[in-house]
């Protein structure tokens, strides 16, 4: 709902207004009347729907019908409001279900076993996609947009809160930020306990915690990784509520006062989750240079999906940036340890037990995104494996305690991770025809067109309308393509035998110094790209040289192949790691600052950005700083801040970079409170992305893809030359693929 408020709302459909007045009048009718009307309306709608879905139409009527539906959709798209969304969804479902009905009844007529294998494979993939589409609509059509409850009680009635910061191998410089920020959360000091749970049992952490007066908790083993760590800490603490922050998720100072209100309002509430906001770019944004222009991968989930889950009381825990009620958590046995996504599993258990879970779409903590693609992939592998484990061991469709909405939402969350096989099928399906000549689709090309195109267009349009602010069109395919190959095996194994596989920790922070192309990681994409290029080549040859009999089919397959090439080459682009000179990501911010120079003069200016180590300043026109000049900075607020010692690093024109000197802990804490802990920094840039425009998204993705193909070519040349030179210089027995890993 913050996202909603940040954008000028489109016109709500007038029809919705009319229906609402009708509904108001309708609810005043006597009950019998209303029931009768509802039943008869329902029956009529069901019959109508059935008729529409199953009516066999010939080519032209289907084309006309599709055109009409699509035009209506385009018109309705301009309006906002629930009714418009529901209508779009209905039309999209009509198109897709018609397509599926026709697909299943008319096109599965195969001649050879080869055709059958490919054909059924494709149908299964399509069924999966349809199922996910339907569930997705259910999940996201009606986001709850929960608003925070303001605390009515006086501070002396506020409950005690334990803040857990589990850490294993993160550097102290990263965790320090979280600890200092947690300590400066606006909450009565006696009721706020901060605990650092160190599974690495490191001395410097212990010393640091002692210096600033937070608790330091360790255990003598590392069983069950983070879940075990949290459970052990639960045993030695006693706060009424528990807030959990990952070692790099810095909370704002308003975190508790924004989240705790709902716990008072609803005694049955066990969990309140807030979004994970990233102030550094993830590998996609970094390597494709789309930071802050294209919404990142997590924004769909945290901006829309969880909000939709919230309507059905199916919000699930994401491991960090959440508050839980201790009594309810202990009732389900603490954090779940049976799977590697202990967070989602815990929420499932809570829901089964009958507790409520809630979501607030206001970012009140921010962290670092994964550094490079290989870390990103290992994180997603863990999530996929865990979800598959839950699917197998604690399936939401079975067992009691969940209502239908919750079952669908959890199921969709898990099924989302099964996209690997279907995605790979979609990426290779046209090659079956182009290379092997298999007839996997028993229908004329034109029929295919008039059925498939509405299905694709409607789903794209509807998804763009629902998700436009959180995910641009076609990027879904890119994300899936990047991860599909890697999560396929873990998911399959987890489905077969859930107890296999270990928890691999995603490490955060660090510098990638040079640019390099991650050949090893990019191998699957390169293979797919090559296959598709091959198919394109063969198909073009056939098109040009062959007879005109199968032109339409060839065209369809070629277009599909081209689309696949664009997607896969974008995936290749992600593997080209750019260098990251600064290890400290900077947060844009506009704070008024007074700079005292060593000669006694001072001037006021604003910051451009800040990081843990320093700030960037917008200097006034007549002032210039010399490098290595000593300065004192104070942030102008009421009351004014202390003076922070700093050194000027550089000065280009109006822009200066300033690095903070070593400061006592008190000043460090104050600095964190004034910069990272500001309540509105993350919320103000949330959901502010460009709205989706499918055509320009396609252009963007194509552009990235083409550049990637060129880049791949260049990288091949460069690394190939290097390899040849190495071969000619030192004939070593070392495995050459290992050499090619880092340039």
């Amino acid at each position: 709902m913050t996202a909603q408020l940040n954008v000028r709302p489109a016109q709500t459909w007038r029809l919705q207004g009319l229906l609402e007045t009708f509904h108001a009048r309708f609810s005043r009718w006597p009950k019998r009347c209303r029931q009768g009307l509802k039943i008869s309306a329902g029956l009529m709608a069901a019959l109508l729907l059935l008729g529409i879905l199953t009516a066999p139409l010939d080519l032209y009527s289907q084309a006309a019908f599709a055109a009409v539906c699509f035009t209506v959709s385009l018109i309705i798209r301009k309006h906002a409001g629930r009714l418009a969304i529901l209508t779009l969804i209905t039309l999209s479902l009509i198109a897709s279900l018609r397509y599926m009905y026709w697909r299943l009844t008319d096109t599965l007529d195969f001649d050879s076993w080869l055709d059958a294998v490919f054909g059924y494979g494709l149908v299964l993939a399509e069924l999966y996609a349809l199922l996910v589409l339907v569930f997705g609509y259910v999940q996201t059509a009606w986001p709850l947009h929960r608003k925070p409850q303001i605390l009515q009680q006086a501070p002396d009635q506020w409950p005690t809160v334990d803040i857990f910061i589990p850490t294993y191998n993160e550097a102290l410089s990263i965790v320090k930020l979280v600890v200092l920020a947690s300590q400066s959360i606006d909450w009565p000091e006696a009721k706020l306990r901060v605990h650092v749970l160190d599974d690495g049992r490191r001395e410097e952490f212990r010393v640091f915690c002692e210096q600033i007066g937070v608790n330091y908790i360790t255990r003598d083993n590392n069983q069950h990784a983070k879940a075990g760590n949290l459970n052990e800490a639960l045993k030695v603490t006693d706060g009424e509520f528990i807030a959990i922050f990952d070692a790099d998720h810095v909370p704002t100072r308003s975190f508790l006062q924004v989240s705790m209100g709902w716990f008072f309002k609803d005694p049955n509430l066990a969990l309140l989750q807030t979004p994970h906001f990233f102030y550094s770019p993830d590998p996609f944004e970094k390597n494709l240079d789309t930071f802050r222009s294209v919404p990142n991968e997590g924004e769909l989930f945290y901006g829309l999906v969880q909000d939709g889950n919230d309507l059905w009381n199916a919000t699930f825990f994401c491991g960090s940036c959440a508050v839980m009620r201790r009594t309810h958590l202990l009732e389900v046995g603490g954090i779940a340890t049976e799977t590697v996504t202990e967070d989602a599993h815990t929420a499932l258990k809570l829901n089964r037990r009958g507790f409520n879970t809630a979501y607030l779409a206001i970012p009140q903590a921010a962290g670092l995104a994964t550094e490079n693609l290989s870390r990103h992939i290992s994180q997603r592998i863990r999530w996929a494996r865990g979800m598959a484990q839950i699917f197998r061991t604690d399936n939401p469709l079975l067992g009691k305690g969940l209502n239908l909405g919750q079952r669908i939402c959890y199921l969709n969350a898990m099924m989302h991770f099964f996209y690997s096989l279907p995605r790979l099928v979609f990426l290779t399906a046209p090659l079956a025809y182009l290379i092997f000549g298999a007839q996997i689709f028993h229908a004329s090309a034109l029929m295919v067109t008039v059925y498939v195109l509405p299905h694709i267009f409607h789903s794209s349009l509807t998804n763009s309308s629902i998700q436009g602010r959180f995910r641009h069109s076609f990027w879904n395919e890119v994300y899936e393509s990047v991860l599909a190959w890697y999560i396929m095996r873990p998911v399959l194994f987890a489905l077969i035998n859930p107890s296999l596989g270990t928890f691999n920790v995603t490490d955060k922070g660090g510098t990638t110094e040079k640019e390099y192309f991650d050949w090893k990681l990019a191998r699957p994409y390169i293979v797919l790209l090559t296959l598709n290029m091959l198919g394109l080549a063969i198909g073009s040859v056939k098109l040009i040289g062959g007879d005109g009999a199968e032109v339409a089919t060839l065209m369809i397959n070629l277009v599909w192949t081209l689309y696949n090439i664009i997607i896969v080459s974008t995936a290749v682009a992600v593997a080209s790691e750019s260098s990251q000179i600064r290890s400290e990501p900077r947060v844009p911010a506009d704070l008024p600052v007074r700079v005292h120079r060593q000669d006694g003069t001072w001037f006021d200016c604003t910051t451009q950005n800040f990081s843990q180590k320093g700030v960037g300043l917008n200097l006034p026109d007549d002032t210039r700083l010399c490098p290595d000049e000593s300065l004192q900075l104070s942030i102008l607020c009421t009351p004014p801040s202390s003076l922070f010692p700093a050194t000027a690093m550089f000065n280009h024109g109006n822009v200066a970079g300033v690095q903070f000197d070593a400061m006592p802990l008190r000043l460090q804490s104050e600095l964190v409170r004034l910069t990272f802990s500001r309540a509105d920094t993350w919320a103000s840039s949330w959901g502010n992305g460009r709205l989706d425009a499918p055509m320009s998204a396609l252009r963007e993705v194509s552009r990235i893809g083409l550049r990637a193909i060129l880049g791949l070519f260049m990288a091949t040349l460069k690394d190939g030359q290097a390899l040849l030179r190495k071969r000619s210089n030192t004939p070593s027995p070392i495995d050459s693929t290992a050499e090619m890993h880092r340039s």
Partner: protein
Amino acid sequence: MKYVDDVTKLFESFGETAGSYQEIQPSYKNFKDGLTPLATSMIEQDFTEALPQATTAVFLLDAPTPPLLLIGPHMERATNIVTSLPSPVTAPLPNEATTASTPGDNQRLSELLRELNQIRRDGLPMPRKQTKAKVIAIVSANGGVGKSTVAAGLAKALGHPGGRTIAIDLDPQNALASHLSAIKQGPGLIQLKQPDADWSAHCLPGYCDSEYLPFGAGSANDRRSLKLQMFEDSDWLNQHLVSMNLSENDTVILDTPSGANVYSQQALDAADLVLVITVADAASYLALDTMAQWLETSRRRAQQHRYVLNQQEGSRSFSRDMSLLFQRRLGSDLISTIRLDHQLNESLAYNRDPLQFSPDCIGCQDIFSLARMVRALLAPDLADGQLAP
């Protein structure tokens, strides 16, 4: 540019007011990293060490400014900043009695600082008074002796034909304005500390054709930066006086806060005549030595130092005895005794000028005679001129 309240912005973004939000700062009392105010105690100690024999001497620094600018991780860094101050606030002590047993680092550092200041002092040219007007600095060792009262009295009584009499308040207490005018308005010198500020234009009219420039109300940051400027530039006040373009018929009276501090140091560096106000009690007497030391080490060429005994009570034998001791001690340096008169105090309360309201009271008479003495000191070749009634 204003600091936008982050919590207000956040709450507004979801349509609520932040009225009920409780802002709770963390208390830093549990923080121990050994890097905190060691430097603070060191610098404050220097100031108090300057006049060690004054047991009850109140050497007030206006508003203990937390010298956070001097907190650093290493002592070297603190040294770097401090030694850029040319004129020492802490006067070099010829015979210093090390009073407190300071921890080793502090002592060593303060000695280094003093040495450095001494070298600077001997090496650099003394700040020269440059303006042609006659400048009188009113100083004292203790507080509450009546500097502002005497300064205001002189400003009203010292009228010179054809010249202006301007009283400038260097005391953050900002009391001079109340003595000289019923109306408080306008910016003071704390808002006018830039070199190009026009002090002449901002002088406000006071009683008896006097003018005054108040200290002004400023924030702690303003005061900090004013003091920084004064530390840095011992000529600061001189330059401002020059910029006022005064003639030799004009008189400037400088009211300072008690003790040896950066403001009174600036006044010393600019004055032709320094009037030390004392009262007839033990605290003032005991402070005489150290006051003398401070004046001596700061003395400029052709600068005169005189003493004024204020608030003397003829009815009490103790006061009479003390004034006798002062006379013996100071001899001809004690130029005037002002008897205790409550009229002066009450006039301040009732916003009226005592020299006009009750000129016959003994306090006013004594002020007139003081003014005569001062005039004689400043222009000994002139005959005793007219004094303002």
